[in-house]
């Protein structure tokens, strides 16, 4: 999992994103500035000795926003930042029965427009590839498309609230019941009912454009078209699908939103979008977009993939008898200098015992040191050979 995290961060660095470290514990007042009621409820909260209520972070976009508006406030925008770390939820249901999960994320703060949106989506896609996922797709939608429909549709406010609740719960049966009760009919009505099916390539933009008659939705469609074009230039046209019915936290996101899906896992492995409202709450108004990758899901996919990653093997197990002890320690240092993983035993053993030990700890080579100038080298499925310590080191290093 560490390796997956490292390859995600490395890809982010290649795109010029600086790794920042944000605290695990934050003042609740600070977090509450940026979180919705539901997210606040899920925080693990406790108080410090001064009686101040603090919380363990449930996501890291808000701490990053605070960093941008605080410590980094004199650094000119746009800022490209990335981070990795655990996030916690007091409600075990949020992360599918886990209270703690790992997220790697990136934020592009201070840039608006389709170019920035496309950059972040392309980065998310390349990150999944860098982590070793080769089968994935990215769904791109727009928060304003839905907001525009809700503005335009002629419904009493109480019904509109119901529509939002039903959509947030992905309950299309309740949605249908709500909309059937109202006598008014419009293109927007039908769009809402077909929400989960509003997916596809560029052609659905044309289809949708024929149905909506409001500025906000039309603007959303224009932006989506532009982002799709840019992603094609990024070389990602084949993994991108447009999803006008994407359902996300509509109070938080203000523009392009997206989710990455891998094979065989029922949840999005990456998600993100534009949130131009957040930074202002911390006193540095700025456009922003970003995403997180759920590291545990990436790991799950890699494990069940065609070539599951194996733990890195030990290159050498170095066993010794009394007279070879010093040689063993020196040989260990030499091998490590060459970048190999070498373990020197803590007790003396004979050759047979040493072989069993090296198998038990999963080493590729057993080096048994019996004297100042003698090492018995047993590679896997090979006959033991007697060599000098320098020759062993040279051969092992050369064979890599």
């Amino acid at each position, binding site marked *: 999992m560490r390796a997956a995290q490292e390859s995600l961060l490395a890809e982010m660095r290649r795109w010029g994103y600086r790794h920042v470290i944000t605290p695990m514990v934050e003042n609740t007042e600070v977090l509450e500035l940026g979180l919705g009621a539901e997210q606040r409820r899920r925080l693990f909260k406790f108080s410090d000795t001064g009686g101040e209520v603090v919380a363990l972070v449930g996501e890291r976009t808000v701490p990053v926003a605070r960093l941008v508006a605080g410590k980094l406030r004199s650094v000119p925008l746009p800022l490209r930042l990335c981070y990795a770390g655990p996030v916690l939820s007091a409600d075990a249901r949020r992360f599918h029965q886990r209270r703690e999960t790992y997220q790697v994320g990136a934020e592009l703060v201070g840039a608006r427009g389709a170019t920035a949106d496309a950059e972040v989506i392309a980065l998310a896609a390349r990150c999944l590839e860098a982590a070793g996922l080769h089968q994935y797709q990215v769904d791109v939608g727009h928060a304003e498309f839905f907001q525009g429909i809700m503005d335009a549709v002629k419904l009493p406010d109480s019904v509109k609230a119901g529509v939002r609740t039903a959509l947030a719960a992905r309950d299309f049966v309740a949605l249908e019941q709500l909309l059937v009760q109202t006598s008014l009919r419009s293109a927007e009505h039908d769009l809402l009912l077909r929400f989960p099916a509003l997916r596809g390539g560029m052609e659905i933009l044309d289809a949708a454009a024929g149905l909506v008659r409001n500025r906000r939705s039309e603007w959303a469609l224009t932006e989506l078209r532009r982002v799709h074009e840019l992603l094609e230039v990024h070389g990602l046209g084949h993994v991108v699908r447009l999803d006008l019915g994407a359902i996300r936290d509509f109070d938080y996101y203000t523009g392009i939103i997206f989710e990455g899906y891998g*094979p065989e896992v029922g949840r*999005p492995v990456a998600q993100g979008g534009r949130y131009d409202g957040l930074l202002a709450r911390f006193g540095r108004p700025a456009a922003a977009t970003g995403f997180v990758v759920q590291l545990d899901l990436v790991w799950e996919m890699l494990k069940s993939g065609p070539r599951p990653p194996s733990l890195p093997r030990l290159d050498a197990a170095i066993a010794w008898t009394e007279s070879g002890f010093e040689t063993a320690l020196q040989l260990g240092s030499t091998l490590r200098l060459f970048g190999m993983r070498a373990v020197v035993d803590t007790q003396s053993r004979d050759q047979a015992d040493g072989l069993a030990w090296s198998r038990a700890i999963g080493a590729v080579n057993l080096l048994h040191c019996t004297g100042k100038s003698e090492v018995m080298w047993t590679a896997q499925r090979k006959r033991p050979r007697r060599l000098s310590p320098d020759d062993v080191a040279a051969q092992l290093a050369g064979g890599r």
Partner: protein
Amino acid sequence: MKLSIAIPTGALLPGALKLLSTAGLMRLSAPELGRKLMVERSGVRVILVRPLDVPAYVDHGAADLGIVGKDVLWESDGGHYELVDLRFGACRLVLAVPDASRLNGPETWPPLMRIATKYPRTTSRWFDARGQAVEVVRLHGSVELAPQVGLVDGIVDLTASGRTLQENRLRVAGVLGDSTARLVANQASLKTRTEAVQALVGRLREAVTSAG
């Protein structure tokens, strides 16, 4: 690519099998499915699971679609999409009190109600919304017995005909919600295998409409 659909054992099973057959997907008898638990035919896999487990199978992507009572969905939350009201398995979640009880509408409720139920979340949410303090006793079966032995003031339970309630000398004092079978879909299946899933959903939806 193969699609899978989780269907529940118990009261909804006959309706679910009838739906699969009306939609022209496959004819299955309950005993056959009960014996095999998993049947695959013409690219569709049917998995038989316990009613309460359907959301878990769907949320984790072990099944693309699921047939499940709304009453089960009230108690679970996850990323699934609730797509179609399948219109069978109608029943009601009610507050029932002993015939002899003085309890009726909210004005007659004591400061703290004790309620036995298999639906703790829905129950506390319903009472919370009415500003009523409630102590929920979670039971796993024979909920009707609890008020008779003085464990609780009333129960919240499902009823289709009201017979079980009558037999246990209970009467309805409030309705929490109406339930029917629903078709739910996994979030990722809907996104990554849109055409196949939507086609299957369409056939099931048609079968519901044609059945009236």
